[in-house]
């Protein structure tokens, strides 16, 4: 847990067109950690993730991944470096089957053997995806779509997995399953950057966390510490 972080953001400013949403954002994710980005609706968490993955261009600042400056890179180039992305709202390819979704997730995987092995791993994590593999993802339930989105991000065996609000709109039982899965894959070596509104769920499993407000990072600390912090609960996260 020391040395050069896997992912580092330095003074990132970004937004949509002329509208700046996040300002001077800086944090890092160490290899092997689960790091959470917390904050209420609209503070810029999704904008931050989109900037990291290259979907948005930062107007200032630098993103480093594995020691390499990835700020100017395009999304597919960043994906090729070993970053998996599970976007907000799941965004599965509704016109494709579950299996085809996973195929697209594994687009960068060269060998058929590797793909088959990875596919088996995903099916072990989420057996439902195997059952439903020929089903159009449009017709799957919210929970199944979430599992598919995570599986799709994982099937390329990324070093770093970015998840944007995976618990949104899901039943508690499903959320539990996802939480357990995240911990398991983290133990298997995958670093995770998690964006969440559900602070309880996220802080429980995080090594470290950052709180965002109004486009900036305002607090940080170890997961457990922040979990007990009253101030955070009231001021920044807006829950009881």
């Amino acid at each position, binding site marked *: 847990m020391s040395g050069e972080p896997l992912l580092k953001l330095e003074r990132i400013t970004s937004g949509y067109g002329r509208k700046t949403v996040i300002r001077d954002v800086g944090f890092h994710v160490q290899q092997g950690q689960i790091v959470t980005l917390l904050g209420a609706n609209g503070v810029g968490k999704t904008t931050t993730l989109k900037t990291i993955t290259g*979907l948005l261009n930062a107007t200032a600042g630098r993103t480093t991944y594995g020691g390499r400056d990835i700020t100017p890179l395009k999304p*597919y180039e960043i*994906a090729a470096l070993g970053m998996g992305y599970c976007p907000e709202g799941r*965004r599965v390819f509704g*016109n494709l089957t579950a299996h085809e979704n996973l195929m697209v997730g594994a*687009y960068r995987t060269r060998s058929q053997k590797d793909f088959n092995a990875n596919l088996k791993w995903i099916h072990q994590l989420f057996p439902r995806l195997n059952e439903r593999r020929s089903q159009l993802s449009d017709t799957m339930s919210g929970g199944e779509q979430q599992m598919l989105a995570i599986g*799709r991000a994982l099937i*390329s065996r990324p070093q770093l997995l970015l998840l944007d609000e995976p618990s949104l709109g899901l039943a508690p039982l499903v959320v539990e399953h996802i939480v357990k899965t995240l911990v398991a894959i983290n133990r298997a070596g995958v670093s995770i950057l998690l964006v969440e509104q559900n602070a309880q769920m996220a802080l429980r499993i995080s090594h470290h966390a950052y709180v965002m407000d109004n486009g900036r990072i305002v607090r940080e600390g170890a997961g457990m510490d922040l979990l007990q912090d009253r101030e955070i609960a009231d001021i920044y996260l807006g829950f009881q």
Partner: protein
Amino acid sequence: MDYFLQQVINSLGWGSLNAVMAAGYTMTFGIIGLVNFAHGEVMMVGAMAAFWLMVVLKLPFWMGCLGAMAGSIAVGLLIERLAFKPLRGAGMITLFITSLAASFGIRTLLIMLVTDKLKPFPIPDYLRGAILLGDIIIFKKTILILVLTFLAGAALIYFVKNTKTGTAMRAMSYDPEIAGTMGVNTERVIIVTFAVASFLAGMAAIFWGIKFGSVRCSMGVIIVVNAFIASVLGGIGNVLGAIVAGFIIGVGETLFVAYLPDQLVGLRPLFVWIVFFVLLIFKPSGLFRPNIK
């Protein structure tokens, strides 16, 4: 009954043309939301290339066909690079207006070069003649066109359904942003899509020449409207749908004209527009499932 069957058989060549053009059209429509009015000119340039090779340079038929494909692919990719790529992310209406401009520009340029007069499209002897099935006449060239369409269609559907690139294309039609984050090189997939669509337009050029025996600079205008309505009818981005819809429109249009009284034959272009408006009222998503959100 015989008259009806004969009309249907006669229209299969035109139906194939429409099907092949619609298939290419729906691919670019699905993947970047582009209603490409210049697709007709992509076909036309291929036809002109074939004409030039076969009639001016007196080269054999197979070289003319190769020339048609090469010409169409070259023009298709050129338009993509010059007109559509700089407008990546622009609204559908802007893209459409641009394709209109490109269509006008290319057509005018070609007319300036070779005039809008009919140009002969010589075909080899083995394509002439017909066979008789009872009272029905079936031209050999119609059979060839049908067979080629069937093969091309099957190959295309296989490509789109079963290959990595084809699946990536369908994923991009639905959500291009997220497809990019999965490692799909979106620019390259777009280029491949245009190349395939242009290839199909080149095939259509050859079909046209074979069926009508001549080509001209304004040939694109007639078919591009059919192609776009067929792709809406078939479900945007759905290749199988476009092929089926293309046949429906081609055969339907011919039957429509066949059963009209003589003096109303000029109402032929109305058929596709009636189909369009009926479609928009009752089932705007098309007959088959579209590949877009």
